[in-house]
C-alpha cells in the first residue's frame, strides 16, 4: 500500500467518530424533526452510490473498448462499493420516509432508478463471481447497458408522484446544518476512495497470485 493510505484511514476513522457529535448538535428541521437527521448519512451515501456507479460504468466501457485489465479491476471494485453504499442509501431512505411520508417505500423516480441501479450492480457481482471465464466482458456489457438504462427509468416513472425532496436543498442549507452535512460527505468520500483502493489492491494481488501459479506450472 502507498504511503498516504495509513494516515488517510486514520483520518477517515476519526471523521466518522466525530460526525455523530456534529450531527447531534445540528438544529432540528422544522417539519420533519428528529428523523431528518438521517439525511446526514443518507444523502452522502446516496451520492457516493452514484459516484461509484459512474466509476464502474466508465471503467467498464474503457475496458470493453481496448483498455487494459486495470480498468476491469476498478470496475469490479466500484461495483462492490455500489452495492455497499446503495444498500446504505436504500435502507436509511425508507427509515426516514416512514416518518416523513408515512410510508416505507414509494415508486418514485429516484427510488425506482436507485433500486434498478443497485440491482444491476448486484447482477454484476453475481456474474463476476459465478460466471467463470469470460465473465469480465459480460460484466462490462452489463455495466454499459445499465448506464444506458437510467434515462429510460427516469422517463418511465416520471409521471408517477414524486415526493422525494429535491437535491436543491443542499445549497440552501443554513450553516448550522451545512457544516455537519458537508463534513459527513467528506468522510464518505474519503471512505469511498480508501475502500476502492483496498478493493483494487485485492484484485491486483489475486492477479499476481495467478501469475505465480502459472509460472510454477
Amino acid at each position: 500500500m502507498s504511503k498516504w493510505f495509513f494516515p488517510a484511514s486514520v483520518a477517515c476513522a476519526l471523521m466518522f467518530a466525530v460526525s455523530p457529535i456534529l450531527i447531534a448538535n445540528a438544529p432540528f428541521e422544522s417539519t420533519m424533526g428528529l428523523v431528518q437527521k438521517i439525511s446526514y448519512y443518507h444523502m452522502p451515501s446516496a451520492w457516493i452510490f452514484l459516484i461509484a456507479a459512474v466509476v464502474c460504468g466508465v471503467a467498464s466501457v474503457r475496458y470493453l473498448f481496448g483498455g487494459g485489465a486495470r480498468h476491469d479491476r476498478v470496475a469490479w471494485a466500484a461495483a462492490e462499493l455500489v452495492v455497499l453504499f446503495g444498500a446504505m442509501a436504500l435502507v436509511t431512505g425508507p427509515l426516514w420516509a416512514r416518518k416523513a411520508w408515512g410510508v416505507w417505500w414509494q415508486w418514485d423516480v429516484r427510488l425506482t432508478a436507485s433500486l434498478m441501479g443497485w440491482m444491476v450492480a448486484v447482477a454484476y457481482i453475481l456474474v463476476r463471481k459465478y460466471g467463470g471465464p469470460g465473465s469480465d466482458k459480460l460484466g462490462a456489457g452489463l455495466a454499459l447497458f445499465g448506464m444506458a438504462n437510467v434515462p429510460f427509468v427516469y422517463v418511465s416513472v416520471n409521471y408517477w408522484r414524486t415526493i422525494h425532496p429535491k437535491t436543491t436543498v443542499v445549497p440552501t442549507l443554513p450553516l448550522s446544518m451545512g457544516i455537519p452535512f458537508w463534513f459527513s460527505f467528506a468522510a464518505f468520500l474519503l471512505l469511498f476512495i480508501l475502500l476502492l483502493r483496498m478493493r483494487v489492491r485485492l484484485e491486483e494481488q489475486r492477479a499476481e497470485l495467478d501469475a505465480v501459479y502459472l509460472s510454477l506450472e
Partner: protein
Amino acid sequence: MSFLRVSWLVFRKDLTVEVRSFEILATSIFFAVSAVLFFAVAFVQEGRALDGAAPGILWIAVAFAGTLALGRTFERERQAETLQALLLAPADRPAIYVGKLLGIVTLLVTTEVVLLPLIAYLFQAPLFARAGWLAAVLLAGTVGYCAVGTLFAAMLVRVRSRDVLLPVLLYPITIPVIIAGVRATSVLLEPELDVAMIRFWLSLMAAYDVVFITLALWSFEPLMTE
C-alpha cells in the same frame, strides 16, 4: 454480402431449424400457458378477476417465455458448436446479431398470439377491442426485450452457469420496457382511450428499442471477441 442479406440468411437458418422440430416454440408456449394458468388460479376468485391484473400477467408471461426461448436458442447453437462457425464466417458480426434477434422476436410474437385469447378469456379483459394499438405495443415491447436479451444470451454462451445468469442480467435492464408495456396495455383496457398516453408509452418503447439495438450493434463486436 450485404448487411441485410446476412441477417436474412441467419434468420432463415434459425427458422428452418425450428420448423423441423418446433422444440423451442412448443416448450415456450407450454411454459407461458402454464404460468398464465397459475396466475388464474391465484387471482381469479368466484369467477371475477382481480382489477388490472391482465396487463401485468400478460407481460410477466411474455418475459418468462422470452427468457426460456433466448436460453434455448443459444443452447442449441452451443451444443452443435455452430455459433463459433457462424462467428468465423466472413460476415458482419452485427448482421448475425440482427438475424438472431429477428428469429427470437418471431418466436415470442407467436407465443403472444397464443397467450392473448387465453388471457382475454380467463381474466375477462377486452384485449382485442383495440387490436391495432395492442399489436403495436406488444411488438415494440417484444423487440426491446429481445434486443437486450439476444446480446446477453449470445455472450452467456461461453459462461458457466448461463441458465441462472440470463434472468439475473436481463430483468434489471428491461425494467423500463416492462413498465411501459404494462402501463400501455392498461391504458388500452380503459373504457375511454387516452391517445396521448398511449402515444407517450409507444414512443418511449420505440426510443428504448432504437437506443438498445444501436448499443448492441455497437458492442456486439468487442463483446463476442475472445
